[in-house]
């Protein structure tokens, strides 16, 4: 899968992953694919809520230990 932008928010805590994600998504066009990785305990919930609010389609959701990577389409 072609990912247009990879965002790394490892070691960032709430609400910084969301702020970083929102700022990056604003600079991108509809239809582009974003991959975001983080390890905050509520990172997964935050990004899923972000996608639900913005009506973004989730393409992948992988967890490896504490680290979660989510791929979604804007």
């Amino acid at each position, binding site marked *: 899968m072609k990912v247009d932008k990879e965002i790394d928010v490892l*070691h960032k805590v709430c609400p*910084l992953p969301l*702020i970083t994600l929102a*700022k990056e998504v604003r600079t991108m066009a509809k239809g582009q694919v974003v991959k975001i990785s983080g390890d905050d305990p509520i990172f997964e919930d935050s990004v899923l*809520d972000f996608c639900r609010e*913005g009506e973004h389609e989730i393409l992948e959701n992988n967890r490896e230990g504490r680290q979660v990577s989510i791929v979604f389409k804007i």
Partner: protein
Amino acid sequence: MQKKGTIMLLSGELDKALTAFIIATGFAALGVEMKMWFMIWGHNCLKKRRGLFSRRRKPDPAREGIYRDLATDNFLQPMVEILNRGGANHLPLSQLNLMGLGPKIFSQMLKKKNIPSLESLIKEADELGVKFNICQICCDALGLSVDDLIVPNVEVKGVSAYMKDTMDAQVNLFI
């Protein structure tokens, strides 16, 4: 429908201001149009920290005069200013302040957990497009200038604007 929210910050304590800005930035990141209002001690977190006896610019009728009645300015305003210098990194805690030691311990605890400082959250809120409004009578009574705040474009407004904003929003918080 565009989701909207307002936060009125009345308190000048670090813990309460931090809560207000975490909510504001989080909501704004999730696409909610956020407006923050600052009243009385609430504006302390936005103030540029100055030296105890730093000279202040004389109020300019073309700038401060627009939202303040300069004719009724008095000697009490600069005296209160010395006692209430504010600054995002110099706010007290509402509990366990321990004569100023509490906020230092608290900030250290947040830093160890990578939790952003209040000042950086204020900057993030500004970048996310959170609107800042400050109460007009608060500016007038305390002799404030919006040029002395760390964020640009702070608007000075009254209760009618607050009424419109709050009635228009789904969430209104008073902290």
